[in-house]
């Protein structure tokens, strides 16, 4: 009897250990080397590592432009950063309930979101574009009407399409992430995907054999700016605003930008938004 009980206890402990090892997976602590700094607090930074090249998983590490950017900014502001991939919708819950300090996940700043969250100064310029098969006739946002469109749920891509077709229109298929939406397009279940330009352009560049192309429509889709997202009233905002501007000035931003996108950033437009 005692043997059985101790075996059960062993089994429970062993399984809990397994769970714990699973938890540690995609967290990563970045030491800034400024530990003497009074600010040297470790921040919990949340993202949705499903949006290459901004944030994605390489093995079990979260990498991407956003990740390099937030590390540089946190270092500049004198914090340690622990980046964790939690998924898109949970980001907003974590930040609203203040369980995380900062979110960086190609989050577009808009008035609706500003009501519930604080944003840093914009750090990236983006616009939604349409991803279609090479032989598609779709040439503008208007021509999306009557076709079924795949988007990532809760993104500005979804918003832009809903503006054109109507909210919760039956032709809009909302997926958990962009990869699934693109997969739906490849398998013929959707005529187009609407998402941030960098993401669809990157996809086309990396997958030439899929025969896709990107359609631009600056009339239907406006320019958007990404910002770091904080809980409402966060004290970090001022520090991070200063740090973002500092890495604009010292060339660190341009360095990271070029590394990921191969071109010079348009710093003037970004600064003009402040």
């Amino acid at each position, binding site marked *: 009897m005692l043997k059985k009980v101790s075996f059960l206890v062993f089994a429970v402990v062993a399984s809990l250990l397994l769970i714990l090892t699973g938890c540690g997976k995609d967290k990563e602590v970045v030491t800034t080397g400024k530990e003497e700094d009074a600010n040297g607090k470790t921040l919990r930074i949340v993202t949705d590592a499903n949006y290459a090249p901004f944030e994605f998983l390489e093995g079990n590490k979260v990498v991407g432009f956003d990740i390099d950017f937030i590390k540089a900014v946190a270092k500049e502001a004198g914090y340690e950063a622990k980046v964790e991939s939690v998924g*898109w*919708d949970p980001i*907003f*819950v974590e930040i*609203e309930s203040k369980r995380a300090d900062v979110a960086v996940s190609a989050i577009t700043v808009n008035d609706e979101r500003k009501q*519930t969250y604080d944003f840093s100064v914009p750090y990236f310029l983006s616009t939604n574009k349409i991803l279609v098969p090479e032989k598609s006739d779709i040439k503008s946002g208007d021509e999306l009407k009557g076709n079924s469109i*795949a988007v990532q*749920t*809760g993104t500005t891509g979804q918003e832009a399409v809903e503006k054109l077709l109507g909210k*919760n229109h*039956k032709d809009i*298929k*909302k*997926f*958990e992430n962009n990869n*699934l939406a693109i*997969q*739906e397009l490849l*398998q*013929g*279940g*959707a005529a187009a995907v609407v998402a941030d330009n960098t993401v669809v352009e990157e996809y086309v560049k990396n997958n030439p054999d899929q025969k896709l192309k990107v359609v631009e429509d600056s009339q239907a889709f406006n320019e958007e700016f990404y910002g770091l997202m904080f809980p409402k009233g966060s004290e970090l905002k001022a520090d991070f605003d200063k740090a973002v501007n500092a890495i604009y000035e010292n060339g660190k931003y341009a360095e990271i930008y070029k590394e990921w996108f191969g071109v010079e950033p348009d710093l003037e437009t970004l600064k003009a938004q402040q």
Partner: protein
Amino acid sequence: MSFRWDIIFEYAPFLLKGALLTIGLSVSSILIGTFLGLLIGLGKIMRNKVLAAPFYFYVTVFRGTPLLVQIFLIHFGIVPFFTGETNAVAAGVIALSLNAAAYIAEIFRAGIQSIDNGQMEGARSLGMTHAQTMIHVVLPQAFKRMIPPLGNEFIVLLKDSSLLCVIAAPELMYWGKAMGSQYFKVWEPYLACAFIYLFLTLVLSFALNGLERRLKTV
């Protein structure tokens, strides 16, 4: 944090539409799955091991892999392979019924094997064939014993249909998620979904209880 009834009312028509699709998906998958499950269950108890092997294989594969994985494979792989395009509802029915069939096959097998061998021997000695005995003697008794586990399986299937939101099948959970991601809310959409699912499973278990009572031998 205030509970926003208004967004539930705003999404009520969508949740209702989603619930109808959930019912449709579940009922059709229950029917197809039960039919397939009966065939597979009978196949598994065939005495010829070679003939029974494919049925063993089927149950091993569909019971041994996660339903979520099967949903992705069927939606992005199998359905487009045959039709050239994806169809979330079709993929949903296929995935749910194939998956349920594996479990239902086991329920049928267990039910049939739970009937005492003497029944088969008695009927055979009265001159009935093996098939006749199955249909008129064994299956009617076995079916009664299968109702509780079948009921469990149907309820599991109904709840598992929520997984289809990942392939954008516009069922109940899909609209719950759409609502959640529009307003970045957790309680309102998911409590509303939970309530509707609970209502659906309650109705289903009442129906199954009724069936069980009617079939009870006096």
